């Protein structure tokens, strides 16, 4: 559990971060979202003490971060940044193994961990281990950057706009990868972004920041359905709200018995996908399949009814 308590950062008279208090449960993804200058990056950087808080404190598993030397603290916390920040003169393997090397892991253990992570990110170790960052595509560089942050099995991983430099298609893939890896490893992640879409897609909890203050902290559904103020509503976007809400709900929630024409959608797909399929092909219902077998259908009316009820 990560507990942030009344943490404040002041530059002169400006409160970059103003008495933010929040808690992140172990094994969850918390996305901090805000415009530039909202203090979200400063908040993140105070957690691993790249910025020293003016007041307040952060506790990881009950232990204050102020109790450890900053560089030792940082070795326990994964850190991934926009533009990956890989070392150009290190191979992929040495980049990923950088933190374990700092922690003096034995060589064989580092090598095994590097291969494990490369496999996890669908990169063949034999092919990529000895490459240099300049020989990778943007998406591969970003994956290596995240793998490096995960290498020492940190208690907590901080990610500062990790997908900011990627094009939309690769970004969507990287987000899927992150969710998959999070599910596999169960790590605690705090991620900063300016993109509400990304926040809703990735976050178990979303924290909205503006002018150094934490405006709202809740599940994506709460943020969409009950925005705390006009700023949060603006971030979510009025037009997009129903669609964003539907994108959070899997088909399995609304599946009912009965048949429907056309191609089936997987049960994990969202209501937004089903709505799009209905509109695009002029159907009133779509079949739902699970493990290759059709298990029922989701109707257009049910989707509309669901979008009207705000949870």
């Amino acid at each position, binding site marked *: 559990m990560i507990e942030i308590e009344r943490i404040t950062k002041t530059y002169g008279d400006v409160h970059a971060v103003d008495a933010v208090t929040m808690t992140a449960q172990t094994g969850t993804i918390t996305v901090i979202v805000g415009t530039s200058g909202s203090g979200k990056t400063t908040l993140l950087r105070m957690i*691993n003490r*790249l910025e020293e808080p003016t007041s307040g404190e952060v506790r990881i598993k009950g232990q204050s971060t102020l109790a450890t030397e*900053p*560089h*030792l*603290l*940082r*070795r*326990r916390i994964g*850190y991934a*940044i*926009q*533009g*990956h*920040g*890989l*070392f*150009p*003169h*290190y*191979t992929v393997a040495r980049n990923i193994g*950088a*933190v374990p090397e*700092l922690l003096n892991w034995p060589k064989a253990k580092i090598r095994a961990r590097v291969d494990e992570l490369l496999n996890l990110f669908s990169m063949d170790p034999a092919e990529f281990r*000895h*490459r*240099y*960052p*300049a*020989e990778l595509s943007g998406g591969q560089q970003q994956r290596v*950057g995240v793998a*490096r*942050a995960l290498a020492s099995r940190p208690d907590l991983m*901080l990610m500062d706009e990790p997908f900011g430099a990627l094009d939309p298609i690769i970004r969507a893939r990287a987000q899927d990868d992150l969710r998959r890896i999070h599910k596999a490893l169960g790590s605690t992640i705090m991620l900063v972004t300016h993109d509400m879409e990304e926040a809703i897609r990735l976050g178990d909890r979303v924290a909205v920041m503006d002018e150094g203050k934490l405006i709202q902290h809740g599940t994506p559904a709460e943020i969409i359905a009950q925005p705390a103020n006009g700023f949060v509503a603006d971030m979510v976007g009025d037009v997009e709200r129903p669609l964003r809400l539907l994108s959070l709900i899997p088909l399995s929630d609304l599946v009912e018995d009965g048949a429907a024409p056309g191609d089936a959608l997987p049960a994990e797909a969202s209501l937004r996908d089903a709505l799009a399929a209905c509109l695009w092909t002029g159907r009133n219902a779509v079949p739902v399949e699970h493990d290759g077998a059709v298990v029922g259908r989701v109707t257009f009316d049910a989707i509309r009814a669901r979008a009207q009820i705000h949870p």
Partner: protein
Amino acid sequence: MSIAANRIVAGEGVMAWHLAAPSAVLPGIAAVVAGLLLGLPRAWPRLRFAGSALGLGGLLWLLMRGAPALLDGAGDYARVSPAIGFWCLLLVLMLLMADALVQMTPGPLARGALLAAVLGALALILGSGALSQLSVLQEFASRKAAFADATLRHLGLAFGSLAVAAAFGFPLGIACHRRARLRGATLPALSLLQTIPSLAMFGLMIPLLGWVGDSVPGAQAIGIAGIGFAPAFLALVLYSLLPVVSNTVAGLAAAPPEALEAARGMGMTPRQRLIRVEFPLGLPVILTGLRIVLVQNIGLAVIAGLIGGGGYGTFVFQGLNQTATDLILLGALPTVALALASAIVMDILVDLAGPAQRKSA
């Protein structure tokens, strides 16, 4: 070629085709002409390289055949030396070779092998005595011991000052890299030092170190005096500091900011960041600084001869005083060769230290 009655008087020019019997000079002339012709087409650098090598061979042949033929019966004090035509051809052929090499872009190892081959060939030719009748080599023959001594002195001046400059310059560069204010003060001061003309610098050292030698007890015992090795050495060190420090600063600043941020974020201490990230990424730039210093010092060390610092400059200034061109050449040629060889070796090192991804390709 030119022949003179003795080492002082001006020589009298002799055309290549009058050097010796036609049968002796013809192969040489033919080789030079063929070499130049081969060098003309732009598209085939290998051909151009072969042409320049052939041409150089031809020149060598002419020297080897011409010198004994000219000296034959010319008297004991007569001297033969290559004249303007030779030097021009040498320059043209070397330019051809350099140009061909640039086009061929050989790897660092190939360049190292080539340099070794050229030096080996040079040593073989000089050692074989085939050219020993040339005036420069006659000057050498009469000064063998002094030449060896000057070589050691010259190397000592150039490499020693480089080592001392590096020993002071690296820490200073690292400190400047860390503190912007120190950098703002240090670099202009060193630049100012660099603008002092070398003769004036050597001149300034005389009263300065003379005073130190006189007033600090024991200083004279370790060789600190107004003239000699110490002031020359110190002046070279001072000249070396700017390239070393500024290239260290530039090299350390070359690391991408994201990589440094990541290094900090993953828990590297400032020292680990310096050793693992900033230094390896800046190494090519830092080595380039050392290359500048080395080549510059090999050249400047000649002037050290003027204040008794020793080295090849001794011959150059003796030659100037006696208007003996051959003696000047005896100082100048090895200086040029040394500077060229050092530059090539340092370039190879810079390449080897260069971006790792190029090495693996």
